[in-house]
């Protein structure tokens, strides 16, 4: 019965937003107006930066000390889809930050909303620092450059080494072996599962589809191609569907208290996740420290070495910023300067996007202290990871994933139907907005 109070709070928030965008023109705070480099070269440029990476303020402090003329203020955000929604809303209201951390899958919606600036001229010199795949994620295959890659999330298989030994399991090399291992676990300990399929994490599913070779969106000429229900995706959906229906795999969502407890108590033996998983495991399953190990994802065909991406982000510059050059300068430093990247790895615990930095990582994450080759494994996996261009309405697709797979789990309907639902919802939304779609 608190909806009325919440409604009141929302109303106030809305009005505040409205008050600041009444004229429809970007409202500039006095600082922003002063910070135009052209009009007032004497004062320092002041930039705001929305990010959710931990300890980013410490890294920015280093920049601020060395660059008295460009002062950056970090505004800490909640991560994920909420952060994207908040940035889009702020951009529409006319008061976005100068810089924003943008997940690769959300970048196209930012571009479509005309909320981020083209940095082609400013980034010409640093293009070579990143792999082609990652660079493609910030250009969408166009001539423009909409952000500077910061980190990437190649997927790997995290597993409980001690329990694998105890149950006599070998690390699965193929998804078929993974399924067999799942059945063995159920026999050895009826309370434990090899893994779980989460209907709440479209990002994980996207990465697995990428591994199988899916291409959900692509641009051909002046039209979008949407192919979410393609064969590789159906294969991945069908595979997990069979395991869940059989009872070999659990269906509890990731990142819930239930899931934390299962990880902590050794009732979940694997987690196909991304390179950032050590951070999550160390805070959500502290008891199991030192018991986890990492291996490449199981493959669809023996002998292959493919992976997909879950997450990863770039630093984008707001289209409305009055100090684009200064913002681009900071974003370049943050993601290509060796000292800055060292800080990003140490303080923000990210897996850097810059190619050189990926191979020079030394110490494994503390949680994986027993696996000294953690970063070498990550680099090897990263080399075989394939991504795809994201579309302009990933929010719609991901929402359709959650609703569709929730329903499929609840009603026992096929996962492939949920995948078709994602395709249909995405195409319908794009048609409604007027995007040109190639059939």
């Amino acid at each position, binding site marked *: *019965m*608190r*909806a*009325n*109070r*919440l*409604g009141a709070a929302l*109303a*106030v928030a*809305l*009005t505040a937003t*409205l008050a600041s965008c*009444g004229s429809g023109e970007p409202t500039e705070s006095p600082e922003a107006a002063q910070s135009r480099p052209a009009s007032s070269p004497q004062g320092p440029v002041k930039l705001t930066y929305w990010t959710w990476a931990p300890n980013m303020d410490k890294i920015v402090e280093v920049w601020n000390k060395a660059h008295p003329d460009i002062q950056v203020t970090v505004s800490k955000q909640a991560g994920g*889809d*909420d952060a994207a*929604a908040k940035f*889009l*809303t702020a951009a*529409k209201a006319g008061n976005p930050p100068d810089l924003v951390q943008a997940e690769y899958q959300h970048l*196209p*919606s930012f*571009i*479509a*909303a*005309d909320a981020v600036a*083209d940095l082609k001229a400013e980034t010409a010199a640093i293009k070579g620092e990143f792999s082609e795949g990652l660079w493609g994620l910030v250009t*969408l295959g*166009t001539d*423009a450059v909409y952000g500077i890659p910061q980190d990437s999330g190649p997927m790997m298989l995290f597993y409980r080494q001690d329990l694998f030994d105890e149950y006599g399991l070998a690390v699965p090399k193929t998804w078929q072996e993974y399924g067999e291992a799942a059945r063995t676990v159920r026999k050895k300990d009826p309370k434990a599962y090899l893994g779980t399929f989460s*209907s*709440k994490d479209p990002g994980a599913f996207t990465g697995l589809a990428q591994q199988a070779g899916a291409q959900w969106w692509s*641009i051909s000429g*002046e*039209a*979008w191609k949407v192919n979410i229900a393609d064969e590789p995706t159906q294969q991945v959906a069908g595979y997990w569907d069979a395991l869940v229906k059989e009872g070999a795999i659990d*269906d509890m*969502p990731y*990142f*819930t*208290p*239930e899931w934390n*407890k*299962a990880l902590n108590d050794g009732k979940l033996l694997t987690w196909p996740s991304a390179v950032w998983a050590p951070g999550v495991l160390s805070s959500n399953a502290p008891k199991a420290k030192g018991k986890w190990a990492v291996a490449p994802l199981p493959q669809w065909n023996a002998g292959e070495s493919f992976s997909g991406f879950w997450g990863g982000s770039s630093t984008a510059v707001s289209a409305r910023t009055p100090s684009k050059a200064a913002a681009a300068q900071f974003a370049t430093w943050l993601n290509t300067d060796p000292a800055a990247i060292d800080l990003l790895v140490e303080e923000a615990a990210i897996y850097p996007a810059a190619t050189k930095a990926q191979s020079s990582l030394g110490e494994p994450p503390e949680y994986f202290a027993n696996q000294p080759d953690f970063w070498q494994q990550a680099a090897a996996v990263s080399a075989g990871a394939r991504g795809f261009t994201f579309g*302009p*309405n990933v*929010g*719609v697709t991901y*929402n359709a994933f*959650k*609703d569709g*797979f*929730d*329903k499929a*789990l*609840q009603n026992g309907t096929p996962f492939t139907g949920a995948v078709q639902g994602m395709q249909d919802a995405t195409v319908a*939304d794009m048609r409604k*907005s*007027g*995007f*040109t779609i190639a059939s």
Partner: protein
Amino acid sequence: MRPSQRGAWPYLFLTPAIVLFTLFLAVPIGYTVYLALRRTKVSGLGLGRGARREVYVGFDNFAAALADAELWSGWLRVLGYGSLVLVVMLGLALLFALMLDSARVRLARFSRIAIFLPYAVPGVAATLLWGFLYLPSLSPIRDVLDVDFLGATTVTYSMANVAVWGGVGFNMLVLYTTLRAIPRDLYEAARLDGASELQIAVRVKIPLLGPAIVLTTVFSIIATIQVFTEPTTLRPLTNTISSTWSPLMKVYRDAFVTGDLYSAAATSIVIAAISLVLSFGFLRVVRNHAFREG
């Protein structure tokens, strides 16, 4: 003082109210209506400058909102949930108010605060707290009672439970305050006539509470239609709550998840209209009956 001599003074006193009303009510509502009549149109790939513009589409968004099957199933779900919450919450509130008011109760002050206290817990916190009690591996309840609180059918009851837990105290307080304002000699007269406490409650107190009951019911109807916090907070814990479980959740999803402010604006106006019809409809039905004594 003749009216003409009053001059501008009354308007001066009214100004703050008018300014606040305009700024915080009229302008947002106006802007919502404006947004509801528009939509973005992109051309080609929709990338880069100038590819996206806002166009006037008339009542298209309203037509889409009214034709949306998901929205109507949302209304059905809320109707089921709402009738449960209304009956149980107001019933308990009335019962507690009468019990506290009865002369024989001890520790009235303590009980009053104890019953009211849950209302002070913010909705999100309350839902999380109950959510943890519903989760199998964390819940002490689940150790004793083997019920899946977050199952497809049970989840509605679980949510209603959170709403009732949080709302009873507030409604009880409204009813209790009204009871305290009733002149004591009415009860004395009834007692002299030989009425028992129960008879006094049913024959004297409840009829006199009529207007207050109507008031709390209207408040509760409006709050129930806008149910948002409970399902949104419980959603990450279970796969039984969709992103459009309640109409207000659909508004949130449209505006902030799929980035369609225009549909969200239209749907929110539809919700406001339905709330108005339901609450005024209820008032019309009970007016003659409830305010007869008033």
